[in-house]
């Protein structure tokens, strides 16, 4: 039974691509985030039919871009996030988006937002005195 369960996890991970995020290793100088594309201009970019890329920087205590991100319902967003200081989290409650953001690495995670609403994005890794204030939102219309 144990073997079957582990096999299912393995098939899902390697066969169907339903894996934990962050497979690829993308390295970045954590002290030069603001000069390294795409993080020199953190923003939401439309890259296809109902498909977006969000380049984001996590810092103590917030996320860039500071402007409100808005997407239509049914859109898929590919998030690329890095940190310009300490370790942060990147979690969207109500979805399975939940990754660590580690300085020196770039975290990748994608999600399709089916339902309209204002989604909370919050830091779930303790990062300092105002950790609980670290959040942003993404609006699905």
């Amino acid at each position, binding site marked *: 039974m144990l073997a079957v369960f*582990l096999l299912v996890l393995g098939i899902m991970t390697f066969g169907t691509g339903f894996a*934990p995020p962050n497979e690829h290793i993308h390295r970045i100088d954590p002290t030069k985030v603001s000069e390294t594309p795409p993080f020199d201009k953190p923003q939401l970019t439309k890259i296809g039919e109902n498909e977006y890329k969000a380049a984001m920087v996590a810092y103590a205590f917030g996320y860039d871009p500071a402007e409100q991100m808005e997407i239509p319902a049914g859109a898929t967003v590919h998030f690329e996030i890095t940190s310009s200081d300490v370790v942060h989290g990147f*979690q969207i409650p109500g979805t399975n988006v939940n990754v660590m953001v580690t300085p020196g690495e770039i975290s990748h995670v994608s999600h399709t937002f089916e339902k309209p609403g204002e989604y909370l994005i919050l830091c779930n890794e303790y990062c300092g005195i105002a950790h609980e204030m670290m959040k942003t939102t993404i609006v699905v219309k």
Partner: protein
Amino acid sequence: MTDSKLSTFDRKDGSLVIAHVLFAFGALLIGGIAGMLQGMVKGGTITLPAGIGYYELLTAHGVLMALIFTTYFIIGFLYSGVSKTLGGSLLPIARKLGWWGYLLMSAGTLIGVVVILLGKASVLYTFYAPMKASPWFYIALALVVIGSWLSGYGIFYQYRKWRKTNNGKLSPLFAFMSVITMLLWQIATIGVALEVVVQLIPWSFGWVETVNVVLSRTLFWFFGHPLVYFWLLPAYICWYVVIPKIIGGKIFSDALARLSFVLFLLFSIPVGFHHQLMEPGISHFWKYLQVVLTFMVVIPSLMTAFSLFATFEQSGRAKGAKGLFGWVKFLPWKDVRFFAPFMGMLIFIPAGAGGLINASNQMNAVVHNTLWVTGHFHLTVATSVALTFFGITYWLIPAVAGRVLTPRLNKLGIVQTIIWVVGMFIMSGGMHIVGLLGSPRRTAYNTYDDHPDAILWMPYHVAMAVGGIILFVGVLLLIYNVVALLKAPKGETEYPLGEVSEHAEPTPKYLENWKLWLTVTVVLILVAYTIPFIDLIGNTTPGSPGYVTW
């Protein structure tokens, strides 16, 4: 073992044991105060008076409960059993190592607590780089670890001498399990020692500019997962060796008990990546491999559950129990020495199931860094392990200090157990549910600009605070009980050690073949970690400078 029954516990060894146990409960009291206050802040019921930060309290709570309370109690308990079963008293060198270990750990604890309370190290007990605490915080941690190593050497020394003088004899089960527990600890702490001594101390003094963050996290979790088995194995010693005696039964099988401990040694170390499933820098393959190894601990866990309930059933039937579950009535429900650990066992069933969810690779995304995880380890370590330790205290202090447990204290112990279970049910239950709803762990009170999701979490946070207050009452009653035990009437109390059932198969020799098991342990670690480590050390990513963000 009958010849040592009711014989006096060596008084010099008794002082060493009592010193450890009392330090542990001191840490529990201070950590408990911090925990209750945190719960109330998180629940939005109080704000802390100026100067005290939520995260300072959280750091103090984590360090004192998870590292200090547990380690001191474990070392005290193991030394008591090693003294009892390996010759009736500690050899002078073993006792000296025990005291030196105690001294170093206590120096480390005091320095650490001062640095935390001064607000120089609000980095929580996981101290993830590149948050940079005062170097003295890391030095304090190093002292605690080195002290615990000395204590471990004392146990190894006593064991080796015993084996030499009792040529070819199977070692007592308690001693064998103590050696496994301490071996696990020695191997696991290599990771955190490397992190602290090689990476963090030079960096926090400013001797080196930057730190390799993913490497430091990997070294931490090399230690962080076996740490939980270091907490659990002493509880299992109580369940396997002590509980059968207390219920008037026999140990189901010596060989099975030893095999399960060997499996814990093998499969609790090469598994740290299951704490890092959601982070970049480690490839799928190595994460998945360690997930598979993680699930191997299911085997010794179920072996333990099976043999414990077999002991319960056999002892009940020997007393005349009828029917499928008639033996349940024959268990000593009114004896706190059984009742507290038994409630711990019972709660380990949902606690273990939660652990399987956490370790399930992609499923981890649902719960990672949410309060679900906090709820999980408040069931495992803070209930299953803690209640077992509390249950041990009711005979350990009397046995080593020459006192007797009075019926009144026994009753108070049962009340304390019930308070603990109720408080934990409310607090941990709240944490599990609100974690599934997405509420992050280690996060002070905030409504995220009154976001509807976050507002929905509030009632559960209040429940956590209520549970925390009930648990604090439990801590106070426990402290009262400990003091009362020290003042209990003088007399001799038996050190309860079970005997193996006459139906059990003899224990095969290879179970005590350390060369074999250490080799397998090292091979498994090398398989699971060598390539990821080479990758991490060889990577050319610039390191991170330090940050003080609190």
